[in-house]
C-alpha cells in the first residue's frame, strides 16, 4: 500500500507540474487579454516537435534550449500580427482565431512530421535508473522533468514578484485598464506574456515529448484538461493554477489506483441494484474507471459552486 501511495504521489506531482508549465502561461494570457487561448496546447506540441527535430539534427540539449525560444518568438509574432489585429473585432473573433490556429498548427505538424508518432528518445546521459524503492525503479529522466518543472516555477515566481516587468504584469492581471492609463505599454506586455507563455508551453513539450508520446494528437489530448486547471485554480491566479495543477495531477493518478465503487461503500450491499441492469452496472463502476472524467466533473462543480475558482478573485 505504501509503495502505491509513494509512486502515485511521484507520478501525480510530475503530471501536475507538467500541467502547471502549460497552465501558468494559459492563465496569464486568459486573465490579461480575456482570451481563452485554444492554441496553447498546440505550442506545447510544437515544442515537442521542434525539440525532436533539433535533437535529431544536433543534440537533445540544443533542442531543450532552442525549441522554447523558437516557439516563444513564434508566439510573440502571432500575438503581434494576428491576435492584435483580430482584437479590434472583439473577444469572439479572438477566440475563433485561436481555435482556428490550433487546427492550422495540427495540420502543419502532420504535413511536416507525418501522422505517426515520432521517435523522440530520452538522451543517453539521462537514460538510467535514478533510484529503487520497494523494488520499483524510477527513471532518471522523470526526476529531470520534475527538476526542470520546479526550476521553471521558481524562476516564474521570481520574475513576477521581484522584477519591474513582473509587477507590471501583475498589475495588468487585475487592473488592465488602470495599468494602461498609467502609461505602461500594455500591448507590449501582452506580446511578451503571450510569447513567454508559448515558450513555457514549448519547454513543457520539449521535456514531455520523450517521456510521453510525440504525435499530432498530443495537443488535443492535453488541451481540455488545461482549461479545467485554469478554471479550477481561478482566473489570473498563478498560485491557483499551481494548486489546481497539482490537484488534478494527483486526483487523476490516485483515482486510477482506487478500485472502490458505490457497491463497495459500507451499508450499500443490501441497497445495490442487481448486476446486469443499467443502474446495477453504473453502481459497480469503479473510481479507476471514471478517473478520466473526474477533472471535468470538478470543472462543472466549481463553475456552479464557486465561479471564481479556488483562488481567483474575478468571475470566470
Amino acid at each position, binding site marked *: 500500500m505504501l509503495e502505491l501511495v509513494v509512486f502515485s504521489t511521484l507520478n501525480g506531482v510530475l503530471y501536475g507540474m507538467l500541467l502547471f508549465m502549460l497552465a501558468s502561461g494559459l492563465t496569464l494570457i486568459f486573465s490579461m487579454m480575456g482570451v481563452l487561448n485554444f492554441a496553447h496546447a498546440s505550442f506545447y506540441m510544437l515544442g515537442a516537435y521542434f525539440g525532436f527535430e533539433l535533437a535529431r539534427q544536433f543534440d537533445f540539449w540544443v533542442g531543450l534550449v532552442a525549441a522554447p525560444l523558437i516557439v516563444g518568438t513564434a508566439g510573440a509574432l502571432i500575438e503581434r500580427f494576428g491576435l492584435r489585429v483580430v482584437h479590434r473585432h472583439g473577444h469572439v473573433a479572438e477566440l475563433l482565431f485561436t481555435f482556428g490556429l490550433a487546427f492550422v498548427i495540427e495540420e502543419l505538424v502532420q504535413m511536416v512530421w507525418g501522422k505517426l508518432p515520432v521517435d523522440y528518445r530520452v538522451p543517453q546521459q539521462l537514460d538510467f535508473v535514478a533510484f529503487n524503492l520497494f523494488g520499483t525503479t524510477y527513471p532518471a529522466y522523470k526526476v529531470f522533468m520534475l527538476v526542470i518543472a520546479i526550476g521553471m516555477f521558481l524562476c516564474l515566481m521570481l520574475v513576477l514578484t521581484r522584477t519591474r516587468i513582473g509587477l507590471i504584469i501583475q498589475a495588468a492581471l487585475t487592473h488592465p485598464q488602470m495599468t494602461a492609463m498609467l502609461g505602461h505599454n500594455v500591448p507590449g506586455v501582452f506580446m511578451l506574456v503571450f510569447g513567454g507563455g508559448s515558450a513555457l508551453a514549448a519547454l513543457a513539450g520539449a521535456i514531455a515529448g520523450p517521456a510521453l508520446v510525440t*504525435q499530432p494528437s498530443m495537443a488535443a489530448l492535453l488541451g481540455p484538461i488545461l482549461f479545467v486547471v485554469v478554471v479550477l485554480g481561478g482566473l489570473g491566479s498563478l498560485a491557483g493554477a499551481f494548486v489546481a495543477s497539482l490537484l488534478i495531477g494527483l486526483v487523476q*493518478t490516485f483515482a486510477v489506483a482506487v478500485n472502490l465503487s458505490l457497491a463497495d461503500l459500507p451499508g450499500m450491499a443490501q441497497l445495490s441494484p442487481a448486476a446486469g441492469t443499467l443502474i446495477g452496472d453504473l453502481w459497480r463502476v469503479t473510481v479507476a474507471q471514471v478517473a478520466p472524467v473526474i477533472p471535468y466533473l470538478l470543472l462543472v462543480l466549481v463553475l456552479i459552486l464557486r465561479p471564481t475558482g479556488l483562488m481567483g478573485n474575478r468571475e470566470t
Partner: protein
Amino acid sequence: MFANPFGLSGRRRALKALAVQPILAAVLALSGQSATAQQTIQIAYIDPLSGGGASIGEHGLKHFRYIADQLNAQGGALGRKFEVVPYDGKTNPQESIVQAQKAIDRGIRILTQGNGSSVAAALSDFVAKHNARNPGKEVIYLNYAAVDPSLTNEKCNWSHFRWDADSDTKMAALTNFIKDRQAVKRVYLINQDYSFGQSVRTQAVAMLQQKRPDIQIVGNELHPLLKINDFAPYIAKIRASGADSVITGNWGQDFALLLKAAADAGLKVDWYTYYAGGAGGPTAIKQTGLSDRVFAIVEGHANIAHPPAQAVETDFRPRTGQAVWYPRAFNQMYMLSEAIKAAGDVDAKKIAQRLEGMRITTHNGGIGYMRADNHQFIQDMYIASFGPLPAGAKFDEEGTGWGWKTLGRVEGKDTELPTTCKMSRPY
C-alpha cells in the same frame, strides 16, 4: 436586338464551338482515363491513419498494398488490377461510417477494416443496412482483425467475413496454455474500456475459474482506449497487487506504452497477450528485458518454417521497413482474389457466395477454411514467445535482436466454437 439572346453572331458562335472542341476532347480523354481507373478492383481500407491507432493502421496499410502488388504481379483477377484505397477511420465508429459512405459513393464495393471492434460493429451494421436499402449496389465487408465474438454470433450478417480468430477462441488457447504453468498464481487483467477489452476480461475470468480455480485474480482493470500517454500509475497498481502474471488484450500504442512504463518501473511479471507483436510492442518488450516472459496468441509469426511465408518475410521487410504482422491479411486477399475469379464478377453477393466454405492453404502453411454458418475463418493458432532468437530462426523484430518462437500450436478444427448466428442470405 433580342432576336439573338446569346449576343453572338453566327460566325462567332461557330468559332466558339471550334474553341470548345479541344476541351471536349480533353474531357473525353479524361473520362476514358477514369474508365480505366474504374477497371481496377478497388478495396477501401478503413482504419486509423491518425491519432493513437495510426502506427498499426499504417502498418496494416503496408500489408494490403504489398499484397495487392503481389496479386497484380500475378495478373490480378479477371484481367483487372487490385487497388487499395486508404480512408482514415480514426478508430472512431462514426468517422469510419462516414469514410465507408465516401468509399461507396466512389463506387467501391469491397471494404476492409480491422482495428477496433466498436468500429467493426458499427461498420457491419452500416453495411447490412446499406445492402438492404440498395439492392444491386451491395457492399462486402472483410474484417481482418476486429475480434469481438458478437460479430460472428448475434450480430452476424451475410456481408461480414472475419479472418482473425475471435476473442473467445484466443482466450481459450491462452488459458489452456496458462493451465499447465503452475508458477501462475496471481493474475492481473488490464484491458481497454470498450467492447473488445470487456469481452477479454469477462472471458479471462470465466475460463480461469474453470481451468485453474486456484489462480487468484488480483486486479481487473479497464482504461480508456488509446488515450493514455503514461501508464506509470497503472504499473504502480499492478506492482502493488503482487501479481505474477498479467493478461491483456491491449493493442497498438496501449500495448507499447504499457510495456514502456513497465520497463521504466522495472516490473517483472509474465505477460499473456493478444497483440504484443504490433508496431512498437517488440521494442518496448526488449526494454523490459523480459526474455521469454511475454507470450502472444497469433495465427502466425515470422519464424514459422513454411518456405513461402519465409520468402514473403524476406521480401516484405526491406520493402516496407516492418515485419509481417498480419498473415491473415494474406489469407484474406488471396481468398478474395480467388472468389472474384470464381464468381467472374466483382459483385458483393457473388463474392460472398464463393467465400463461404472456401478452403485454402494459409499463409503459414496450415489448412484454413471460411465457416459457412457464421463467416468466421478457421485456421491454426500459435502460442508464441518473445526472446533472444533460437537457433535456426532467421527473423528478429524491430531491430531488437529478439524474435518470436512457437511454444504451442492449436489445430484449426479445435478452435471452432458453436455459434448463435442466424444469417439470411440474398444469394
